[in-house]
């Protein structure tokens, strides 16, 4: 049973279900929530690439999310650019800022990096909040246009918007998949496990970390730009630290450093939050302790937990088959699985 639930099958299942989902339900509210969940997933993938694969916890990603959103908002509403030009430009802006920030921030490590990015996120939030001539401050930006269509395809209905966001999400998953299973992905994991060791075996840690950082800010920016075009109203609150904590919750529940974790975590937490509607503003009464407990008992979230159980059962089966004499092979197999999971 568990063998069926490997990450490729989960992703395929997810793609199929999400493709037919709007055909099954006619409830636009459900589609709306789903689209939002997809948008968050993109941002969470960005966070996962950095925190999960290289071990650098960035708390500035809500800021980059907001930069992507405001980039699109300002370019379309104030500069009257066409949608897709503004879209690409907002991604470029986010990436460029990510590059500049990364160059400086990545010189610090561990706690310093977390504190640095936390403060940086706050600076971004405050600038958006106070720079009224550009961002309209607390009033927020209103009237962000929906994406322009290509020929016969238009993105005005909820359904079409859903598929557009899904397209970008799948693109992100594909990119993630390719990265994680490439030599670069291996290098990132090596950096996470021991930066000094990675450096001694000839991995250019500085360049790798910078690549990851820029990519992950790009994901965050993409997520922000999609959010702005979907919700069509943005306020400075989207850059608040509360947003990064939400994203972190999705990531930790699903499984940090796993490929399917962001999918599962985001879906689960968002739907749970929907069930808790009246309780929305107090949801952290549950998710806060959940975050702490998961980190203590299942540091790699649901996906990591399931994989561990599966691996243990595999090892047990192997033991029964091989008897007690061949413990060497068994540990070898365990090691193989470990490497595979990454």
């Amino acid at each position, binding site marked *: 049973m568990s063998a069926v639930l490997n990450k490729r099958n989960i992703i395929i299942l997810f793609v199929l279900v999400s493709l037919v989902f709007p055909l099954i339900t006619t409830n636009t509210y459900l589609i709306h929530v789903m689209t939002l969940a997809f948008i968050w997933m993109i941002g969470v993938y960005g966070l996962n690439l950095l925190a999960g694969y290289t071990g650098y916890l960035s708390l500035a990603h809500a800021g980059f999310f907001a930069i992507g959103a405001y980039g699109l908002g300002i370019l379309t509403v104030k500069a009257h650019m066409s949608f897709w030009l503004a879209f690409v430009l907002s991604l470029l802006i986010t990436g460029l800022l990510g590059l500049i920030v990364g160059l400086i921030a990545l010189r610090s490590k561990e706690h*310093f990096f977390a504190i640095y990015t936390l*403060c940086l996120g706050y600076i971004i939030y405050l600038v958006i909040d106070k720079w009224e001539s550009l961002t309209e401050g607390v009033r927020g930006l209103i009237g962000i246009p929906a994406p322009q269509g290509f020929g016969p395809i238009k993105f005005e209905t909820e359904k079409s918007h859903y598929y557009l966001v899904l397209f970008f999400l799948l693109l992100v998953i594909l990119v993630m998949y390719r990265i994680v299973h490439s030599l670069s992905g291996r290098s990132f994991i090596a950096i996470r496990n021991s930066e000094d060791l990675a450096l001694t075996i000839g991995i250019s840690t500085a360049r790798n970390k910078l690549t990851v950082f820029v990519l992950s800010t790009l994901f965050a920016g993409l997520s922000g730009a999609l959010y702005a075009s979907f919700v069509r109203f943005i306020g400075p609150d989207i850059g608040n630290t509360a947003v990064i*904590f939400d994203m972190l919750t999705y990531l930790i529940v699903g499984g940090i450093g796993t490929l399917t974790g962001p999918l599962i975590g985001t879906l689960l937490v968002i739907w749970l939050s929907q069930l808790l509607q009246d309780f929305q*503003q107090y949801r952290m009464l549950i998710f806060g302790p959940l*975050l702490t407990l998961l*980190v*203590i008992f299942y540091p790699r979230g649901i996906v990591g937990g399931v994989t561990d159980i599966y691996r243990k059962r595999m090892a047990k089966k192997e033991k029964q088959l091989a008897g007690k004499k061949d413990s060497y092979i068994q540990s070898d197999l365990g090691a193989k699985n470990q490497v595979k999971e990454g």
Partner: protein
Amino acid sequence: MDILIQQLFNGLTIGSVYALVALGLTLVYGILHIPNFAHGALYMMGGYITLTMMTKFGLHYWIAIFVSIIVVGFIGVLMERLVFHPLRESPPIQDKIAAIGILLFLEAFAQYTWGAEYQSMPSPYGQVVEVFGLTLTMQRILIVVAAVIVMILLNLFLRKTYTGSTIIAMSQNREGANLVGINTTRVAMLTFMISGGLAAIAASISAPINLVFPGMGQLVILKAFVIIILGGMGSIPGAIVGGYIIGFSESLGATYISNDYKDIIAFFILVIILTVKPTGLFSKGGH
């Protein structure tokens, strides 16, 4: 000139509060090497508990502060026992996430219990006094005096008492402290207790001039982080000096640069420090 002196005094007031919060943070960092992101939530809890004790139970301001110190200190101990102790061998990213979990919980808890609105704390020291031509409120003078007294007491405790020196010993070398027979678990609990108590004092004395609300700890804790990076992670004099530096630069910046952006000043200082020296000023040893 009057404005300058007035602002310098304001800086002294804010700086005292920051220094107290940063002291708690730096003590915990010295012992366990974790940046306790939940420290701001302890500060916030301190404010609320003092307020509740005064309004609901009609206790006197000082007794309310005392209760608050005990309760928040106890929350600190619980945190250490339930969360940071089990995580002591884990990779550093997990401590941070766990601390964030506690922070989120406590903030939601405060919002659930006391509501999201801003509340003001009545203080018996609201009167205005004139000192050398300056108009000051008693509360602000109280903040400065109380903070200095607390710092002196803490310093005496750490340097002169046996229990205090075990904290210093453990921050210097955990294994070493364990080898000479110091109960490191107890010291860790004690440190969290003191750290929580300091946060409660800081919140209780500053709440009458600010306000009490669930997010009141967020900015303070961020600035406290800036302070301990400025003063050296784990350094006690560094936390005090850093607290006053940030306090002064903020109050002067608010007057002479821009009131809107005064909160950014501290973070700007941090960004500059970490840009120039990624391991923080006065960091001990090299990797």
